């Protein structure tokens, strides 16, 4: 109890987000018809959380050095140390968590803006939507700060449960209901496998704290790599694989991504993936750092299958939402390379490449889904590939945006997707697994087919009959337009000048690994 105040400070950004969620829920019942204020409250809460996280890292007289702090050059510290642990070591706010908090707040704000077009037609459900979204982000924050198996699992569930509701948000729509049920059943199953793995990890080490597990494992010496730890880490990898939709645990993803409301799909493909990756990155690189051989082997199988199957299944898709779902699976495969590189070489380059890629992927993928939301806001649209044919003539700016995101997802310079893949593939080559990098590059080349086919349809195909632009009943959704524009600017700016983000990602890991 002595460190109660201190502990509260450590998770203060998460508390701000969770309290904002409660506020949104309650405000929903008081504002009557003026529900436009709810997204503003939610966004303000996220900005406040980001500000709290930033302020915690700054001494008052060092306000000017925020930039240096973000880029990892700064000397600003939290509570006089590099990181601050709270609740008896259950959580720790360090530079890694700081980077992730900022990333999650950006994802959240972009999603809130993106959902503008969507929520205008469903004003009654605004409170639930934004409240649940904030709760998921609070869970993602928990994933980033957890340094204990129990805290990790609670954060994992907090991140998962509201997402099931969000996936089924279109009440009365059969596909949305199917998405929610499929996601829930698969998610509950994966949670069970995960918690079984965590329990076995505890059985093997007698500790729930990450540092304690690592210590107990190194104390065991050669005995540490027993069958028990193999089973434990494989189970943890399975639970993690479900959440990031890695093959062969991807079965739910296409149906869920297609059935869920598009802003939710954008959020799931970016936010949930980021939350899962940062949580398990911390678990694998701190707790299981001495068992790198085991989990690297498990993740290598996942990565190869995910890259090959994800890209291969994306090829025949003619529904854009489904195509992006399979592409999202494939990108999870690329991201796994960073974790594998860290496990194989014990170098932080792979993990910082993951952090960088999560930032880059946020802009690319939210932008791509945002374009779909925007087109649907402007005219009848069922996400078919044929429906975007000739879009360059009727909606030139939208077509430019879509082309930009598709090219960036392919990984063509000078856009940010190229740098993301560049750092990931460099890390895996440096870790001595060149064959894996070759698989990844070949599969990237395959992905060019289905990404650039969209661009081909946009510019070199004739528009189908009756595809005129019609104004939406609810009027154009400015928030969605702003979100897509910001994402496009992010893709361009970080593509031309990626060094701030990459140095921030590297700075975030200086403490976490080898420190």
């Amino acid at each position, binding site marked *: 109890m002595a460190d109660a105040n201190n502990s509260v400070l450590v998770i203060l950004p998460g508390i701000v987000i969770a309290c904002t969620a409660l506020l949104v829920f*309650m405000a929903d019942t008081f504002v009557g018809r003026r529900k436009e204020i709810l997204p503003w409250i939610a966004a303000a809460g996220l900005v406040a959380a980001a500000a709290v996280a930033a302020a915690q890292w700054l001494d008052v007289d060092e306000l000017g050095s925020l930039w240096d702090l973000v880029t990892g050059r700064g000397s600003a510290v939290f509570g006089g140390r590099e990181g601050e642990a709270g609740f008896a070591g259950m959580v720790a706010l360090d530079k890694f968590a700081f980077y992730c908090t900022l990333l999650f707040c950006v994802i959240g704000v972009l999603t809130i803006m993106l959902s503008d077009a969507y929520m205008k037609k469903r004003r009654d459900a605004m409170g639930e939507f934004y409240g649940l979204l904030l709760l998921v982000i609070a869970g993602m924050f928990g994933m980033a700060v957890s340094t204990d198996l129990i805290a990790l699992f609670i954060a994992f569930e907090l991140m998962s449960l509201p997402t099931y509701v969000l996936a089924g948000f279109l009440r009365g729509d059969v596909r949305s209901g199917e998405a929610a049920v499929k996601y829930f059943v698969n998610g509950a199953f994966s949670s069970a496998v995960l918690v079984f793995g965590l329990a076995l990890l505890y059985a093997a080490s007698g500790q729930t704290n990450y540092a304690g597990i690592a210590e107990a494992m190194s104390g065991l010496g050669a005995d540490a790599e027993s069958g028990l730890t193999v089973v434990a880490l494989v189970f943890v990898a399975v639970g993690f694989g479900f959440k990031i939709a890695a093959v062969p645990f991807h079965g739910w993803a296409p149906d869920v991504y297609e059935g869920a409301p598009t802003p939710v799909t954008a959020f799931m493909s970016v936010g949930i993936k980021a939350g899962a990756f940062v949580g398990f990155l911390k678990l694998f690189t701190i707790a299981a750092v001495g068992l790198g051989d085991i989990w690297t082997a498990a993740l290598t199988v996942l990565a190869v299958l995910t890259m090959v199957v994800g890209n291969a299944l994306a090829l025949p898709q003619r529904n854009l939402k489904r195509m992006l779902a399979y592409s999202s699976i494939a990108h999870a495969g690329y991201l796994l390379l960073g974790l594998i590189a860290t496990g194989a070489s014990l170098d932080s380059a792979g993990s910082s490449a993951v952090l960088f890629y999560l930032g880059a992927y946020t802009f690319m993928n939210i932008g791509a889904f945002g374009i779909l939301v925007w087109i649907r806001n402007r005219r009848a649209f069922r996400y078919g590939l044929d429906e975007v044919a000739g879009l360059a003539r009727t909606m030139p700016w939208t077509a430019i945006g879509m082309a930009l995101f598709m090219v960036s997802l392919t990984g063509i310079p000078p856009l940010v997707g190229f740098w993301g893949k560049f750092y990931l593939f460099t890390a895996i080559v440096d870790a001595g697994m060149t064959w894996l990098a070759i698989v990844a590059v070949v599969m990237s080349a395959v992905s060019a087919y289905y990404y650039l086919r969209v661009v081909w349809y946009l510019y070199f195909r004739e528009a189908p009959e009756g595809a005129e632009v019609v104004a939406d009943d609810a009027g154009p959704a400015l928030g969605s337009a702003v979100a897509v524009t910001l994402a496009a600017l992010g893709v361009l700016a970080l593509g031309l000048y990626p060094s701030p983000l990459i140095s921030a990602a590297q700075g975030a890991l200086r403490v976490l690994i080898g420190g």
Partner: protein
Amino acid sequence: MLAPALGALVEYADRPLSPSTVPGRRAGPTIHMTSEYLTNWFYVWSFIVSGAVLVVLILLVSKLVNPSHPTPGKLAHYECGIPPVGSPWSPFAVRYYVFALLFLVFDVEAVFLFPWTLVFRTLGTAGFIEMMLFVAVLVWGLVYAWRKGALEWA
């Protein structure tokens, strides 16, 4: 991969437990885990077996010594005196689920409140404040349900 893993599991369970391998365990003589396990499981199994034997025995004896004169009235399904009407698989009002959800609010609260009262003095003011915050969040949920009209039967 599974077969060697299982083999290793058995090997692991069978390993001698020295104080250094189990953190938090007091130093003591090395115990062989298997024998300790077998002793414990022996009691469990004897309970299971004797329980099963007892049930079968009682049913058998009652079957043998009981006079049997079945009539239609005796064979009817009997529940609280009234003969059942229709199939029990009838639809029921889905609004009951709201009450199940609201019940959870208080259920979880009680589960957490009881152990708290036992250590109330030890935790002191900080513990009191934390518990009040916890209760406040749950009350917040109840007020939300109230404002949303979940408490009205309509």
